[in-house]
């Protein structure tokens, strides 16, 4: 018998702030987290896009060396948000180490900073014979480094899932964590994703002609989801985690239930690894509604993947139109911070929760003139004070992976 899965804590480090207060203020005031790309002394001169969704504030981690010795920058984000959710949850230490709590967490490709250092050594023709490749560089850079640094730091002994599927990494993390709890494999899961500051990702998308290049002098004016003058995505960084728990036990222990995951779907387009696919995306959205046991009319707003690429936004608009028509509000949250890659699904789910809790919808930034091919949707164009109860969070990734999570406000 499937069990209900509730969200009892969340935390996000984003380009528009760390924690609910900062983030909500940014959403309410239209503050962008997109900044000029920092010079990395390696690639930036060759990259056309000069903007990045940047975490430019200091975080006081305070982690001891016993933990940091296996952590690259990406694991700092991951462990910090995991620490936040565990502290906020009030879960006992006995439960945390019981094997009934698991971790579903990952990043796009581990720690590129550490990988870059390895390759610098590899290609440097060093005269001296000492390798500067550290003994723990693999632990810091491997693709599941975030998940297992979390387990190490908190002594978690349950299941580990580290799905690394580019832009759907953390939406899969939450979806697979939801299924773990729903079907009784675990009683709780820490789920999310993180990605660190990385210019190689910018270079890759730049070479694919997918990055924004027209707003290098006005970073806050890009990305521009659904806008006629959109010119591509902006890469960003961050970390985000949610704690999912089985409803009855969360209620019994008096946990602060801030939302419920009621549906999840994930599929593949079964073909091209880059191009968005209307049929694949449409199917995902329908499967998520089916899993949630609700109809399209029940969804109040959609957090669209909306990366601001030329075709991606159009295909997503068509898919939303086919499944939902023009009833639900549609927001492109990447307009605030760019595309935080493996983190985006978790961040966008948390921002959706915040907006439900606070009773408002933030407008899609930089949406000045809606592309006529996207105009059939009910775009949020200005700050809107409105009570919403159900949201769908959509994410799509290279490799043809599509996900949709559906969450509900369960507060009285």
């Amino acid at each position, binding site marked *: 018998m499937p069990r209900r899965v509730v969200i009892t804590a969340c935390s996000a480090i984003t380009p528009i702030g760390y924690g609910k207060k900062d983030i909500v203020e940014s959403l309410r005031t239209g503050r962008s987290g997109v900044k000029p790309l920092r010079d990395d002394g390696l690639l930036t001169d060759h990259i056309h896009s000069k903007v990045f969704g940047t975490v430019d504030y200091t975080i006081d981690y305070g982690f*001891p*060396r*016993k933990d940091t*010795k*296996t952590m690259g920058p990406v694991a700092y984000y991951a462990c910090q948000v995991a620490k936040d959710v565990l502290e906020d949850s009030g879960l006992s230490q006995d439960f945390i180490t019981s094997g009934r709590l698991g971790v579903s967490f990952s990043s796009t490709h581990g720690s590129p900073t550490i990988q870059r250092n390895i390759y610098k050594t590899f290609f440097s023709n060093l005269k001296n*014979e*000492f390798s500067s490749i*550290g*003994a*723990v560089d693999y*632990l810091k850079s491997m693709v599941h480094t975030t998940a297992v640094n979390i387990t190490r730091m908190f002594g978690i002994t349950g299941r580990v899932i580290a799905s690394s599927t580019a832009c759907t990494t953390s939406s899969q993390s939450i979806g697979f964590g939801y299924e773990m709890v729903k079907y009784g494999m675990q009683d709780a899961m820490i789920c999310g994703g993180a990605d660190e500051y990385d210019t190689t990702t910018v270079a890759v998308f730049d070479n694919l002609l997918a990055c924004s290049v027209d707003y290098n002098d006005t970073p806050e004016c890009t990305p521009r989801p659904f806008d006629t003058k959109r010119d591509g995505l902006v890469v960003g960084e961050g970390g985000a985690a949610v704690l999912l728990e089985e409803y009855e036990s969360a209620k019994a222990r008096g946990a602060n239930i801030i939302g419920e995951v009621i549906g999840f779907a994930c599929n593949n387009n079964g073909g091209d690894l880059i191009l968005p696919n209307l049929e694949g995306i449409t199917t995902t959205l329908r499967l998520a509604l089916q899993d949630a046991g609700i109809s399209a009319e029940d969804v109040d707003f959609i957090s669209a993947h909306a990366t601001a690429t030329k075709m991606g936004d159009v295909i997503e608009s068509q898919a939303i139109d086919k499944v939902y028509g023009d009833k639900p509000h549609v927001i492109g949250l990447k307009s605030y911070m760019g595309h935080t890659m493996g983190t985006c699904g978790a961040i966008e789910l948390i921002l959706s929760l915040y907006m439900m809790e606070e009773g408002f919808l933030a407008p899609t930034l930089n949406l000045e003139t809606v592309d006529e091919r996207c105009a059939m949707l009910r775009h949020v164009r200005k700050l809107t004070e409105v009570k919403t109860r159900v949201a769908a969070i959509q994410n799509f990734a290279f490799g043809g992976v599509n996900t949709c999570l559906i969450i509900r406000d369960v507060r009285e």
Partner: protein
Amino acid sequence: MTRDELEKNIVTILVDEFEFENPGLSDNLRDDHGFDSIDAIELLAKIEEMLGFQLTRKEKEQAMTIRTINDILDYIESMQDAHQS
């Protein structure tokens, strides 16, 4: 390097980079300071840097029996002697 110089260097490394608090020469590295196999590998790299030569695989494996700072100093001295002869 004299034993005193080695001791000073190693204690500085352990305090500054391995976050040891008030290290004693006879302290058990693992029990008293949480020093584990990853730390041992990292310390060996520091020792190579300090000595100015590379240790062989066999020499590194000999270091795995080290339990105290005194053991570290004994080990470094034996490596110095071996590479000078």
